[in-house]
């Protein structure tokens, strides 16, 4: 039996976690993969918007991990118990401001940071810098992988499950604000709603479609390339 791959993930939501699970299963079919989902240490009583799910939750976890790591996630103990760390936020976060997630005093007021799209890369590069800032700056470690699907994770899901969708083939697919609109229009035998239940059922389909997604979509390709580097490192 191969050595278990332990992956710590800070993700926006539970469906994003399932997609990551599918991707890692696709990339490492021979390895046992354990996903450790990271959550910020917060009280619902102090968070009127809820228990800081979404990208606000990722922000809070990054800040707490940087603090625990004495300034940078590179010093955090999270990597003592995990082989790699994946931090996910959707690229559409680049269009938002901190107040929209109830974040009152951000470390830097560096949102929004979106650029014209296409190309998606200008925006995702800018957002990567923002997330690295959350994580404590450029000293972050080589086992860290940023996962920034453009504009959001559903662009990858639709591309994986419905690869002959004509929109997916267009150069601006990774710039569409609401790729999840296509979920409800998928062929009946593959149709998914954005729910944990449907995504769990569709997990094998997403995993099967991942190589195509990584080959066709720029940000998926970057993520697919970064993961083995971190795992190997």
């Amino acid at each position, binding site marked *: 039996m191969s050595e278990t791959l332990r992956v710590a993930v800070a993700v926006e939501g539970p469906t994003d976690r399932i997609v990551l699970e599918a991707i890692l299963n696709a990339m490492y079919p021979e390895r046992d993969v354990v996903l450790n989902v990271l959550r910020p240490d917060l009280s619902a*009583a102090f968070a009127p918007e809820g*228990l800081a799910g979404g990208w606000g939750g990722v922000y809070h976890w990054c800040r707490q991990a940087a603090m625990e790591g004495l300034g940078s996630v590179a010093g955090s103990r999270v990597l003592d118990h995990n082989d790699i760390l994946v931090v996910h936020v959707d690229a559409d976060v680049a269009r938002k401001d901190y107040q929209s997630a109830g974040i*009152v005093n951000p470390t830097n007021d560096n949102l929004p940071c979106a650029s014209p799209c296409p190309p998606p890369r200008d925006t995702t590069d800018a957002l990567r810098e923002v997330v690295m800032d959350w994580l404590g700056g450029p000293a972050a470690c080589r086992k860290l992988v940023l996962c920034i699907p453009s504009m959001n994770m559903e662009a990858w899901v639709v591309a994986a499950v419905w690869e002959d969708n004509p929109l997916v083939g267009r150069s601006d697919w990774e710039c569409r604000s609401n790729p999840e609109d296509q979920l409800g229009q998928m062929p009946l035998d593959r149709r998914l709603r954005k729910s944990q239940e449907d995504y769990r059922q569709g997990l094998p389909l997403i995993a099967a479609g991942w190589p195509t997604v990584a080959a066709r979509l720029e940000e998926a390709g970057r993520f697919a390339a970064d993961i083995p580097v971190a795992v190997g490192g």
Partner: protein
Amino acid sequence: MLRKLTMKAFKSVEDVAVELGLVNVFIGANGSGKSNLLEGLGVLSAAANGMVDTDALLARGVRPGTPSLYKTAFPPRRGRRALPHLYFSAESAEARYEVTLHNPLKSPEPAWRYKTELWMDGADKLLGRSVRQRGYNPKRGLAALKSAEVEGGPGLSLLETLQGYVIYSPATAVLRGVEAERREKIPLGLAGGNLAIALADFKRMSRDRNSLANCISRDIRGLIDWASAYSYSRLNRRTDSPAGASSAYTVRFRDRYMRDGRNVLSGQDVSEGALHVLFLGVLAAHPDSPTLCSVDNADQGLNPRLAKALVGRLCQWYVSANEAQVARQILLTTHNPLILDGLPLQDDRIRLFTVSRTTTGRTTIRRIEVDDELLARAADGWTLSRLWVMGHLGGVPDV
């Protein structure tokens, strides 16, 4: 809904008043008096139902005890006389029921005697009873008898809410169906018995996509992430574990990782956390669940993060039920700090209380409200759970 509960001279509760919300969480050291509070409400429930004896107490999940155990035994404070009786009062927005009960310490009787009763519906007195009134059986509550003549209204609603109150103490072996339920109740026994039968009703209700049960069912699936589905069925002698079963039915979970045909687990085999989640979900949704109930040690068998997520969902369930005009109110005790982090306390209907004992041993209860001071701590990265464990909120033992 019960707005205020007052009790005097009951065990360690010498004199306490609590203003309740829909979901009420009590934290405190072992022996601080959390269970006494729940049980005091149980005694009041029995009184509202017309008889306070061992059977009535056991049926509500209250540990029966002798009068010398039930009556507060603190030395009286200087200048004050100890109450010679137990006193309980419950108030809703428009009604009130209060009662004093007596049982001689030296020659205890099987049933407690009513000294006084007062039952108010707004400003109208539905019933008054004083120690000077003769001719009534002192062991029978008059409000319960009078209720047969009352047609609706807040007074009757309050009395019926009290009468239906029970304390659940779910036990894993009973939830599994391998130990018999000692306190049968519809829909769930006080130790969680009959879960499979109650689940059958729950599954039927959840077919309506707009129902609370449907919403709770989705939440349960999200909370028990290793299961792709759950249901109930008759026990199968061929495929189920051979351990002795106390019920012909069992809950079933389908393990989403295992192959079809070998992926169905019975209540005997499933993780205890899944059973406790299911218990709380069914209790919240079932139409026959009591309007008012307690769950002692609500965090049993739960991973801390699951407990935190579950209590957050549970608060939503009870708020949604009441918004849909289904009266539901619950009191919970817990020792799991992360439960505190799941409570949306900025909603006034969700309340957290610390239970402590004074230097003289008297139980005191204090509500923890989210104020500017606490929010300032939150801004500095503090959580309620850490504040509690460090002792900042009270309700911790001196160890």
